[in-house]
């Protein structure tokens, strides 16, 4: 067996062969690199997805549902306003196949508050093909309309503003319009914040305590019903930081179901704007339950101003001796006006007696001795000359005397001739009892350690003295019906006649009681005001003060103030100054 080994002939161009092999190797390497790159790319992608993409996915989804408009909650987190997915009922007119008259009749049966003609008009006329038949529809109504089987009717889900507490704190929380913008209260004041992408996920926390608010509304409603008053207002402030714990204005409204205002027809000129249409800002409080009387209505609050004037006189160095007596035997006649006391004692009175018996004459004499400048300065420090520093947009400007004459100085000292809102008075009483510091009021819950832009109005010693005097008014004076045993209430009545054409209406009274408790270490200020109580006894001692007593007895333990029969502010040094105490 022979083996022939043929020697391969050398290629003609060995150099070309080498090049081909090199080229093949190069291509293989290229493919290899390509594969390696793909594998590396995939591996890298996997790593990327494992490390970074997961968090991106979580971010993009978000597990916490963000409402279209931020929630509003009270100081303990109880919801006051919330977005919920609600139903609307709309119609596409070109897709309606049934008899429109019959459909309108069926809709009227489901929604009796709207007429059949109203629905027929919506189903037939109008330029747009699409129209709302109903907004904020209840699920059972939606089911009833769906059962009609009309394909032209749709049920879009829309975010709906719900106020779970109904009419409670309606003026403070406010409400929104059809476009989802705030119209009143906190909804209006913080409209941008509630709608902003960055902040709408965080609830807006108010300082208001819903339990206190409910108790105040309940007691005030009973008081108004008992007295037949036209309206009422009440506010509870934290005396040491200006937080609004409760704010009530009566009559009130339900923000979930807004009733149209009962305005006179034709519209009187004083309600018309420049275009002849209704100007919402000109609607008086008497005509609108949406008016927040705590901040929008101006009142001459009467004798409740006396402690403020006396405190200003103490700081001005005019009242240095409380035992000094002033002539209150006769009405005081100044510039042709006759200043008299409602409960004239016909004798000389000292300062504690003047406050306890609410003497206009003595207060006017002290103001006259003090002069206009110290009184003006004190009132200006309390912002009685301007709109209150406050978040709510609907704030009334005050009525500040144009000319501060001698007689004006005297009448203003006991709360006549100057009109402020009840909130002004509440903040002023906070300064009067808390050691003399005026704190700007706020509806938002203050953060611990928050810096407050406060200012000193009264000295510490004056504030301490006023605490004694206010307590004496409740123990022995006109405010006896505000006493809540164990809670150390102090306060001052104020019964002022309402201004009318050509003077004051003697039968129309604004009865106010301004209180603070506990007076040995004041924590809360309570202002209750009734507008025109109609029963026989109309003064604050019979109308507002009992409401304060009931309210404090009911609410003080909730606020951490417990009754202590054995604790009180020491008034023993001043009691002998009262005629009855001698």
């Amino acid at each position: 067996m022979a083996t022939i080994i043929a020697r391969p002939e050398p290629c003609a161009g060995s150099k070309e062969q080498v090049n081909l092999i090199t080229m093949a190797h190069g291509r293989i390497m290229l493919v290899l690199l390509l594969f390696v790159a793909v594998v590396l790319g995939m591996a890298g992608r996997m790593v990327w997805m494992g490390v970074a993409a997961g968090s991106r996915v979580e971010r993009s989804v978000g597990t916490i549902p963000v409402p279209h408009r931020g929630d509003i909650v009270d100081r303990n987190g109880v919801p006051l306003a919330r977005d919920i997915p609600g139903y609307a009922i709309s119609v596409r007119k070109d897709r309606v196949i049934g008899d429109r008259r019959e459909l309108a009749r069926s809709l009227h049966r489901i929604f009796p508050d709207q007429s059949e003609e109203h629905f027929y008009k919506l189903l037939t006329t109008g330029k747009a093909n699409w129209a709302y038949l109903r907004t904020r529809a209840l699920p059972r109504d939606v089911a009833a309309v769906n059962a009609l089987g009309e394909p032209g009717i749709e049920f879009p889900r829309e975010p709906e503003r719900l106020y779970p507490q109904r009419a409670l704190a309606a003026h403070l929380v406010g409400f929104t319009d059809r476009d989802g913008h705030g119209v009143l209260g906190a909804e209006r004041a913080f409209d941008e914040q509630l709608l902003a992408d960055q902040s709408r996920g965080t609830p807006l926390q108010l300082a208001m305590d819903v339990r206190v608010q409910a108790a105040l509304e309940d007691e005030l409603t009973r008081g108004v019903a008992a007295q037949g008053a036209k309206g009422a207002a009440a506010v509870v402030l934290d005396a040491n930081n200006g937080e609004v714990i409760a704010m009530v204005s009566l009559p009130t409204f339900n923000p979930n179901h807004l009733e149209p205002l009962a305005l006179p027809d034709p519209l009187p000129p004083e309600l018309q704007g420049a275009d002849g249409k209704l100007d919402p800002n000109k609607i008086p409080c008497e005509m609108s339950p949406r008016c927040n009387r705590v901040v929008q209505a101006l009142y001459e609050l009467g004798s409740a101003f006396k402690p403020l004037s006396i405190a200003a006189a103490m700081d001005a160095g005019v009242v240095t001796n409380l035992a000094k007596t002033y002539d209150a035997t006769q009405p005081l006649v100044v510039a042709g006006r006759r200043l008299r006391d409602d409960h004239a004692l016909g004798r000389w009175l000292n300062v504690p007696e003047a406050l306890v018996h609410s003497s206009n004459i003595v207060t006017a004499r002290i103001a006259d001795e003090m002069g206009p400048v110290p009184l003006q300065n004190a009132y200006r420090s309390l912002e009685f000359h301007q709109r209150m520093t406050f978040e709510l947009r609907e704030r009334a400007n005050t009525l500040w005397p144009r000319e501060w004459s001698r007689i004006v100085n005297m009448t203003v000292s006991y709360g006549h001739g100057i009109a402020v809102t009840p909130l002004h008075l509440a903040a002023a009483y906070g300064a009067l009892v808390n050691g003399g510091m005026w704190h700007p009021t706020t509806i938002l819950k203050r953060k611990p350690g928050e810096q407050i832009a406060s200012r000193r109005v009264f000295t510490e010693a004056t504030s301490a003295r006023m605490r004694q005097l206010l307590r004496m008014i409740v123990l022995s004076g006109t405010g006896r019906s505000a006493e809540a045993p164990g809670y150390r209430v102090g306060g001052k009545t104020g019964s002022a006649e309402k201004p009318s054409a050509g003077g004051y209406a003697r039968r129309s009274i604004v009865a106010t009681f301004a209180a603070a408790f506990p007076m040995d270490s004041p924590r809360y200020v309570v202002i209750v005001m009734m507008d025109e109580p109609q029963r026989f006894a109309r003064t604050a001692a019979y109308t507002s003060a009992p409401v304060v007593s009931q309210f404090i007895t009911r609410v003080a333990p909730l606020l951490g103030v417990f009754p202590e029969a054995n604790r009180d502010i020491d008034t023993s040094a001043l009691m002998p100054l009262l005629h009855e105490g001698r």
Partner: protein
Amino acid sequence: MIAIKRLQSIMWLLVIAVGALSAYLINLRVATERNAVHDMLVQIRQTRSQIRYLEAEFGARANMLQLASWNNQDLGLRVAAPSQYLSSERELARLDGIEPAAPTVAAPPVMTAMADAAPAEQPAAPAPKAAAGGVHASDFALIRSASAAEPPVAARPRTERLVDVAAAAPAPRRAAAAPDPAARRAARLAMLDARLLGDSAEAAAGRESRRSDRAN
């Protein structure tokens, strides 16, 4: 050899293909997990939305006005009276319902004095409610009523317990009437114990109390 070499390249190809496939499978797995996580997040979000909705519904159904209405109609719950609040364990211990034999004594009133308002020599006014309602019984009355329930032979251990109570509680300013002999013995023991413990305030109160006993 050539075949092996060719097979080797195919093997490489296969290895790479398998590698790529497995990488793709892992990628698919990751994508699946990611979708599952996404679905879970959406589900959590929807559940939270439902919780929000239900909270709103509960809040609306049980709003404060509704609760007040139910209370007025059915429950009839009322605010606790000031006398129902107790400030200390001592007052709690007095809720035994046993009428004190001696007239009651008010605990010393706490009066918040003003820095420059009340002169030092002014006596503190008595608390308006404390003495009137018979709510605050004196220590002597408590001791008397407790020891009276025990037979005389068993008085000693009982007295020791009462001594502790008397030593822990602030002493009254003065006793209004003389207690019975058993209570006086117990009270004296309490004062003696307080003095031995070196509490000057208690001892002073004990002396004051004994003086008032003698006066009566």
